[in-house]
């Protein structure tokens, strides 16, 4: 539990994590906990659902304003054993998430990670995810990674509680 609180607090206090590194890491998001950037890539409104199981899906909006395609590959976080990029698929009447090796995001597009779509799957969670808390995680791209704060929403949430707000 403490770990959930410490990481976001450190991130808030520290401001831009890894600021000053030229390439491959998140850049300053101006203290906005709903926004992280990696070059021309903006990651907005990362969220998940409260759960007491050992797995959870992470959703967010990824806006790619650059000129060359970006490749999302996965992520990492201290609170889970593994992070896998997954995509929803329905086949023969059965629906579920299957692992993706990577995901190409074309220049000028917005990739929305959402329920029944693409998501990052946390497995081996250390502790239950509690509503209204948050935690930090790295979102990895082929070109580097960005640190995002993941907001824990209600167990039946379908969107980030600030979805639709501009950042």
């Amino acid at each position, binding site marked *: 539990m403490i770990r959930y609180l410490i990481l976001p607090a450190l991130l808030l206090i520290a401001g831009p994590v890894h600021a000053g590194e030229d390439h491959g890491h998140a850049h300053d998001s101006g203290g906005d906990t709903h926004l992280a950037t990696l070059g021309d890539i903006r990651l907005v409104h990362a969220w998940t659902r409260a759960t007491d199981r*050992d797995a959870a899906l992470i959703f967010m909006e990824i806006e790619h304003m650059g000129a060359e395609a970006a490749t999302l590959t996965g992520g990492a976080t201290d609170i889970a054993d593994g992070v896998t990029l997954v*995509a*929803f*698929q*329905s*086949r*023969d*009447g*059965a*629906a579920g998430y*299957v692992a*993706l*090796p*990577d*995901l*190409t*995001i*074309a220049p000028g*597009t*917005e*990739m*929305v990670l959402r*329920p*029944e*779509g*693409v998501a990052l799957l946390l497995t081996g969670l250390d502790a239950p995810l509690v509503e209204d808390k948050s935690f930090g995680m790295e979102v990895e791209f082929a070109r580097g990674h960005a640190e995002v704060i993941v907001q824990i929403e209600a167990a039946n949430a379908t969107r980030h509680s600030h979805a639709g707000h501009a950042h």
Partner: protein
Amino acid sequence: MDEIYHALPNWGQDVLVTLGLLTPLLVVGLIVLRGFHVGPLLLGLLRRQVWISAVFTALIAVSVALGTGLIAQERGLRQGTARAADKFDLVIAAPGSEITAMLAAVYLQPSDLPLLDGATYAEIAAHPRVSLVAPLGFGDSWRDAPVVGTTAGFVNHLSEGLAAGRPFTAEDEAIAGARVALEIGDSFAPAHGVGDAAEHGAHGDFAYRVVGKMPMTGSPWDRALMVPIESVWSVHGLANGHGPDWDGDIGPPFSPAHFPGTPAALVRAESLGATYSLQAEFSTAQTMAFFPGSVLARLHALMGDIRQVMSVLAVITQVLVTAGVLAGLMMLTRLLARRLALLRALGAPRRFVFALTWSYAATLILTGAAIGLLLGIAASLAIAAAITARTDIVVAATLGWPEIHLVAGFVSLTGLLALLPAYLTMTRPVITDLRG
């Protein structure tokens, strides 16, 4: 404990849940029947009250059958609608309602959709990660069969090979769905529109000839007629999608300048990841890209709440019916009071009368639940056949673990309720009952 449970295969988890739900009944049964051999008297009681027992059992069976049948039906419908959308990886349409576009493209429900223009269609078709793109043009019909303009590539994708005949190669050729009452060689004239308002003869003397027949897909496309998209445009007085230098071969590539528009385009990509990338790329101010499977899943998630309500209502209904049966049982035991009092006078302990009455009620409940499960299967099959006939979506509703869990919970709960009439019987005054 939680880790052990999640490490089990699905069937193992289901068996465990079933046993867990039945545990209260088993524990109560062991405690109540401990030290007694009620079998012969129980059989005698059932034989003597055979008609009343049969009526009580039938009431429980019917309530269980209705509950399980309805819930199995909901699951079957959910799986059937999802299966029908399997072939529609990604649909791109003009911006609007995803649900309306899905109902039109996947389930062939008549809808007014804005059109994708030629430039947009060409952009989709030229995308390096697109392996198949096909226009879907609706609006005409033959009897109750929608006539859909598309390409031979789409027909091949949907059917995975025709059941008979060959793909269409000319504007006046058609492929018939498996449930369309047309065979290879038959001709039909398309009507403009669908249903009662369809205008017959609106397209003059133009007629299609069926050259191929689709296999069953378990979707509304089984009742559709697929024709070249060029013919749909032509019979409506539009350009046929090809420029002046067209070589006469129907199908792609289409000329953007001569492309009249399409309400929807089916898109397949080289991989699942590429499909999601395409969805992001074509979710713009000019285009709406969506996964029918995802839209359905969101709808089904809403239905999931309804399913929970249905399950609770089913259990409540079953418990109410059983409560009525148990009330009847209490009246029956009053009629049997003299015989039970005689048992007591002959030296049977109170607890034996308690055990006999409870085992009688438990026998009715268990027998009724078992017959109800069988009736539930029959009810599911009958309702599924009716839904399939009305919607053309193959609904394969069979009882599964959720229904077994429901019945196990019901049996345990009502088994506990049956302790009440047994207790009341046990506490009846023996002398008064003997006097009759």
